[in-house]
């Protein structure tokens, strides 16, 4: 199984879901669901084969981290795809997933030997927590976009025929609340594990300053979002807007830190 085959399956299933927005036939969404399930299964096989080659979970480079994020987010969207009220969300996620996989496909090769420093227990815990949190935020990001589109149509009373199958706002808001909360817990845990790992290895703070600052900034945006959502009851539009800003910021910082400053962790191999 190659990443290109996985990518092709994602794009095909995405086409099925998009077609369903305009042509609401049970056979169309059925085909989209089957293809999506196959895509995720193929993606799992691909990740398993990479893990089998090295004996390590393939999250050792930024590209591999992004690949794992896409996979985990896909698992959540497959769950949505098989529920009638949220089935069409795949139409918004799959093109983004396809784009990210297309972008990282050339860089997915193993990054040489794993430095012993990364084998400490805190490091996999840190990585998996952060990637899990990112995947949950990715879901929240897509759902936020759908929320804003649907909300704007409802306010104007101009619901496009393609938007007729979108989930009700209450359902979208509930998904947003759950993914944001779990994502925030995962990211917070990831930051704590990262700090424990750095401290156990004796890595000085100056080496991690850029990464820590970026992480803290993203954490603050999402903390603000969670606070406003649950304490001030900014449910709906405002939470969706902050989520989009927070996730965009997270992606930009990820790109800047990993591409412009490859040694941001002081090791050059971090996600």
């Amino acid at each position, binding site marked *: 199984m190659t990443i290109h085959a996985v990518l092709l399956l994602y794009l095909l299933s995405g086409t099925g879901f998009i077609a369903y927005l305009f042509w609401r036939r049970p056979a169309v969404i059925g085909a989209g669901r089957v293809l999506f399930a196959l895509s995720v299964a193929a993606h799992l096989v691909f990740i398993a084969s990479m893990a089998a080659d090295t004996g390590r979970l393939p999250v050792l480079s930024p590209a591999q981290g992004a690949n794992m994020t896409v996979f985990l987010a896909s698992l959540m969207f497959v769950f949505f795809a098989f529920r009638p009220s949220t089935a069409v969300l795949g139409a918004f996620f799959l093109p983004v997933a396809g784009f990210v996989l297309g972008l990282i496909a050339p860089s997915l090769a193993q990054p040489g030997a794993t430095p012993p420093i990364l084998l400490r227990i805190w490091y996999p815990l840190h990585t998996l927590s952060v990637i899990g949190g990112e995947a949950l935020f990715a879901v929240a990001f897509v759902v936020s976009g759908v929320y804003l589109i*649907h909300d704007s149509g409802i*306010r104007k009373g*101009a619901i496009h*025929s393609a938007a*007729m199958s979108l989930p009700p*706002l*209450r359902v979208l808001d509930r998904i947003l609340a759950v993914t944001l909360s779990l994502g925030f817990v995962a990211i917070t845990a990831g930051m704590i594990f990262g700090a424990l790992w750095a401290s156990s290895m004796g890595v000085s703070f100056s080496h991690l300053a850029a990464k820590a600052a970026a992480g803290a900034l993203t954490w603050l945006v999402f903390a603000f979002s969670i606070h406003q959502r649950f304490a001030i009851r900014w449910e*709906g*539009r405002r939470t969706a807007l902050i989520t989009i800003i927070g996730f965009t910021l997270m992606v930009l910082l990820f790109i800047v830190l990993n591409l412009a400053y490859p040694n941001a962790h002081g090791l050059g191999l971090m996600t």
Partner: protein
Amino acid sequence: MNRIGCITISYKTAPVEIREKAMVSPGDFQDLMSRETELFALNTCNRTEVYWVGMDEGAVLARLAERSGMSVEELGKVSRVHRGRDALNHLFQVASGLDSLVIGEAQILGQVKEAYRTALGDKTTSTFLDKALHRSFRTAKRVRTETDIGRYPVSVASEAVELACRIFGDIARSKVLVVGAGDMANIAAARLKDRGAGSLVIVNRTHSAACTLAGELGGVPRPFEALREELVSCDIVVASTGSPVPIIAKSLMDEVMKARRNRPLIIIDIAVPRDVDPAVSKCYNCYLYDIDALKSIVDRHLTDRQGQAEKAHAIIAQEVDLFEKWVHSLNAQATIRDLFSLLDSYVQDEVKQGGLDGDEAARLEQGMRTSLRRLIHRVVSFLKEHPSLANIEHTRRIFQLDGNYQDRHKG
């Protein structure tokens, strides 16, 4: 195909004073009918239609004119006559709601089915009209499932329900607050209740009117002073009072939304003058629609339906073609030809299965052909002597000459 005809007196051709006089039932035409004729009558508030097969058009029109208290000339001015394929096309359009005042409305299909039940009771339909009506039901179903013609609501009450469903999804757990007890509030609240709204509370300045409406709709009446309290706990508000000034001000809604902790609230203001200050729409998570907003949505949906009507006409054309094919097959000569083809294919299959070659196969084929022709000869002679539609149809069904002969039972 030319045996079918129809006359229609509809909102397009006649005012309501004429339409209400032109109500007829199949029984009104019984004495004009014979074993070879068929008749179907449809009466709704927007139309009276009579379809006939094998009857004298002049006699049908004269009877309709007589029953409507008009002369045939006067009837000619307020009606349209369709014949053959055109009549069938019209029937399919009517059943699909394409000829309705509100294009694409679904109620007409139920009315056509009800009229058909009456005709079945009066035994005025037979092979041709039975098939045509079942085809019209099937066409209407295709139009509804294969186009978006019925997807967009086109009444203010339905639109209010649709918007609420877009926000809350299942409204079974939603609480509806009706402010006022007028007719419009009644219609919108009844629509929400029909769609499964969880609970209904009615607030009105005159408490007795609130009690009456609550009794009709199965809701709970509350005094007007409880308005603020009810606004905090409800999900959907329908406002339709006769108040000359807004009764729900922005300042009140600011307080209410704070107390609701910004839980979404949809307000349908169908009162003129408006009951809700337009500035309320600025409150966070408050979705406010006044009568003009709802009407403009409804107008847009009507335009969308017009667009969908083109697709629907294409479906109707397909179905009329299929029906025409069936009608052509209801010809004695064609049926006899089809019987012989069936016999040939049957003989060929048997010879092939026998696994014989040369002379033996030829002998078997000849023997079978002779026996089967002798058997079929009786049917062929009967058809030639009595080529009625019913006999032809029965023959075709017994020998399964049409792949889709069961369609008429599927509707």
